[in-house]
């Protein structure tokens, strides 16, 4: 096998599992170390660079980083990355002076953004400091989009949202509130240099079963109902409520229902628990609020008697798996669950009734969705870009942010008359973390503590007021310990082949037996059979050195369960192993080399 090229930023980036899994590639270990040092402002700013909304995401992110966390492979539970992000936001001081600023001298380019959700705001965040004139059209009276109207205040207080949206808007975005865009043609006619569509996936899915329209006031579409609660159009719901669907919107619906008068709330799932779409922590939080979850029930009809909804009929399913792993259901029985109201939370669709089909934006005939390039976020009409849920359907806030950054790069290229496919590359820095004899720029000792438990507000207090935030946040003491659980995967074990004397010291000391000196193999699979402790998880890379000076064997490192404890480097007599801080340099709009 050829030697691994560690000069390609992707190799070390992949070792940092959380950062690799994060769509916005937030430097998680970096900001956790800043929290450990009590440098909350710096931690917040490091977060903001990539994910723009640390306070919001620290409460609401779907955290793709956490299942990826190395700690899961080493013990059981990941580092509480998401809630530590909130710690940085909660404990920060006034950082307004450190925010990016728009120059007085504009560059003369005008950009229109449709919708003031996370995608559009990220585009504005990246383009305003470059001198662009950014106008955001928003149908509601306040910014935030789905973050404001669909995420209940008990999970995300309005003050947090206002503050972080404000950081961007105050740079000088032109906000057109209460201005829904109903014609793309008309918008294009206004002569903007580029248009960004970040209008989300605003249409809740319908469930057209018998009885659906017989008592319409009692049957709601989840995201519409949540928005109505937010705007105060709905203040009460009947006592017995069924929620159809078991995604994260269903969790918000059931918990909101509990706060507006429902006493018995039941969430109905078509399949078993392991297939639930809701994140495990959102399920836990709902169940803590005494919401019942019923599995394997498939809706059949709404039971309406004398014009009043009295229940819903379900088929009780039994699921079996055939040889190819496909799930098949058989109906065991039917069953009526009594209720006074139903909320449908079975998914969302995009809808673009306002985009005329003859403006040069091609739509996929099958899904009736615009055709959008996965890298450039450009539609088939030059200068029109899509991002967030508007691009490919419902995702999470962090995806919208990642889209926004990429779309901003494209818009900047487009406005400079350069091809949008020409994109600034990722870079990296790699600096030794050695501070002295056995002294490192990070805490390399292993923290055996279990994951910190989030403190929650009392049930009575939270049901009394819908705006009472449930999660109280970590205390500084809890945060201080939790950050030490981070294995510092960005402090890389960097090997210099020419220095190695093959003394085996690193191989002997490695607590998880990641290292092997062996004869080179023809393929990775071949090499893996000769490792000290062959990995069960083959998703992680194997590092292979050049031929070693004395025996021409190779140094092999299995990245799977490396603890980044630095013992290999401490035991290395020649500093062939060194611990080096890897910093991924992400490109943003305007960072292209001339």
């Amino acid at each position, binding site marked *: 096998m050829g030697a691994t090229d560690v000069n390609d930023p992707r190799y070390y980036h992949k070792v940092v599992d959380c950062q690799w899994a994060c769509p916005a590639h937030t430097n998680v270990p970096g900001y956790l170390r800043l929290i450990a040092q009590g440098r909350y402002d710096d931690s917040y700013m490091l977060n903001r660079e990539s994910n723009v909304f640390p306070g919001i995401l620290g409460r609401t992110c779907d955290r793709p980083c956490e299942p990826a966390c190395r700690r899961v492979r080493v013990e059981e539970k990941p580092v509480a990355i998401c809630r530590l992000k909130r710690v940085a936001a909660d404990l920060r001081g006034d950082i307004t002076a450190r925010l990016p600023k728009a120059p007085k001298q504009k560059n003369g380019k005008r950009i229109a953004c449709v919708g003031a959700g996370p995608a559009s705001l990220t585009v504005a965040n990246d383009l305003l400091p470059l001198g662009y004139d950014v106008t955001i059209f928003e149908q509601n009276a306040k910014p935030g989009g789905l973050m404001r109207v669909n995420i209940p205040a008990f999970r995300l207080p309005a003050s947090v949202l206002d503050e972080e949206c404000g950081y961007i808007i105050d740079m000088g975005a032109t906000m057109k509130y209460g201005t829904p865009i109903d014609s793309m043609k008309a918008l294009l006619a206004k002569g903007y240099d580029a248009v960004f569509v970040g209008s989300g996936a605003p249409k809740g899915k319908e469930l057209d079963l018998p009885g659906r329209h017989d008592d319409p006031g009692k049957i709601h579409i989840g995201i519409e109902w949540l928005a109505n609660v937010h705007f105060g159009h709905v203040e009460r719901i009947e006592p017995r409520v069924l929620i159809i669907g078991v995604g994260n919107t269903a969790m918000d619906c059931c918990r909101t229902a509990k706060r507006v008068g429902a006493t018995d709330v039941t969430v109905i799932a078509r399949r078993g628990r392991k297939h639930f779409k809701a994140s495990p922590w959102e399920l836990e939080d709902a169940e803590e609020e005494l919401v019942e979850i019923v599995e394997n029930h498939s809706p059949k009809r709404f039971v309406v008697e004398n014009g009043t909804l009295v229940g819903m009929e379900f088929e009780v399913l039994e699921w079996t798996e055939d040889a190819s792993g496909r799930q098949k259901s058989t109906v065991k029985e039917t069953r009526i669950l009594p209720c006074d109201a139903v909320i449908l939370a079975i998914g969302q669709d995009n809808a673009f009734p306002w985009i005329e089909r003859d403006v040069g934006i091609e739509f996929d005939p099958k899904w009736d969705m615009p055709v959008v390039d996965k890298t450039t976020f450009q539609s088939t009409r030059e200068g029109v870009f899509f991002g967030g849920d508007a691009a490919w359907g419902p995702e999470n806030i962090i995806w919208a942010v990642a889209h926004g950054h990429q779309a901003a790069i494209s818009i900047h290229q487009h406005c400079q008359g350069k091809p949008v496919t020409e994109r600034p590359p990722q870079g990296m820095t790699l600096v030794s973390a050695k501070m002295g004899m056995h002294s490192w720029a990070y805490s390399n000792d292993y923290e055996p503590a279990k994951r910190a438990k989030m403190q929650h507000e009392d049930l009575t207090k939270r049901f009394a007021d819908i705006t009472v935030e449930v999660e109280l946040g970590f205390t500084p003491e809890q945060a201080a310990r939790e950050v030490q659980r981070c294995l510092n995967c960005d402090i890389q074990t960097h090997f210099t082949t020419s220095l190695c004397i093959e003394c085996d010291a690193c191989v002997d000391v490695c607590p998880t037996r990641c290292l092997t000196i062996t004869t080179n193999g023809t393929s990775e699979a071949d090499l893996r059979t000769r490792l000290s402790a*062959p990995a069960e998880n083959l998703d992680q890379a194997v590092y292979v050195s050049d031929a070693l000076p004395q025996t021409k064997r190779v140094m092999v490192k299995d990245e799977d369960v490396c603890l980044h404890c630095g013992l290999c480097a401490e035991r290395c007599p020649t500093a062939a192993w060194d611990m080096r801080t890897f910093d991924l340099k992400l490109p943003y709009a305007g960072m292209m080399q001339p």
Partner: protein
Amino acid sequence: MTSIAKPPVKHPSSRQNGIGLTLRDYEGVMSTLCAGCGHDSITASIVQAAWEMELEPHRVGKMSGIGCSSKTTAYFMKQSHGFNSVHGRMPSVTSGAAAANGGLTYIGVSGDGDSLSIGVGQLCHAIRRNVNMLYMLENNGVYGLTKGQFSASADIGSTSKKGEANEQAPIDPILLALSLGATYVARSFSGDKRQLVPIIKAGIAHKGFALVDVISPCVTFNDHEGSTKSYAYTRQHEVEAVEADYVPLRREITMPETKGAVTVVQMHDGSSVRLRPTAPDYDPTDRESAYAHVRACQARGEIATGLLFVSEGARDMHELARTVPTPLVDVPFEALCPGQAALDKLMARYR
């Protein structure tokens, strides 16, 4: 030295041996030796061998004297018995321990200073007594703990770190042991666990005195260009006389025979050692040929390694002394200490 202890995290695939222990259960405290010391690799090899042999830690005695090498008994099998003795006196202390309790497995760890200078007489007599023990001689050619003076195993012409050449003839522990009638004589290299681990295992299984001379480079004082015990020099001049494979009693032999004659030596516990000489006419069960081979290698400036000589038929210390086979701790008090009347009777024989 390291700044932290080894994190208590096991590899997800780490297996348990037949007595329910993982490899890491055979570790000791963190080594305080220099980074890259050959001794640490030998420690790791002992850990590996003990785990594979399913030694019960509480049935092992770790014996040592003074020196860098003698510190290493702390770095493996932290649940075992141990005795860190006076400089050079480990063989005597082990003789005493083995006399009192022959039921334990004794692993003695010593160095070239401890064994070939201050303790050379002790070593010779332990070989003569054929004490049932594994004797690991961690040989680096210098006194590392006192800043790198030549030891008694330094070769003529090899230089100190400052460039001074050694002019005194070395003591070769292999030739010494062969001439004293040792029954298990092997040499290996800390940088070659593939060879060292089976040799350690066979040495533990051997009934009698098993001497394993291990070239163990001193990274701080003897890993330079003028050294004949450096990593690079050993790798360039090592000549493996015999490939050894230790086959425990339970394992079925499924390895196909390859070229070369294989000598199978049956150990007293039913396990066996399979020896495949790499030089023609080499017979690892013939003391004369072993001696001649080691001398010939020496003359060519080569380092003969492998299990060089083994004889499983010899009597060990207990058989030679006709002592009771039971460890004294298990002999009933009445038999062990039969009282004044028995003593008087014994004394009467000398009057």
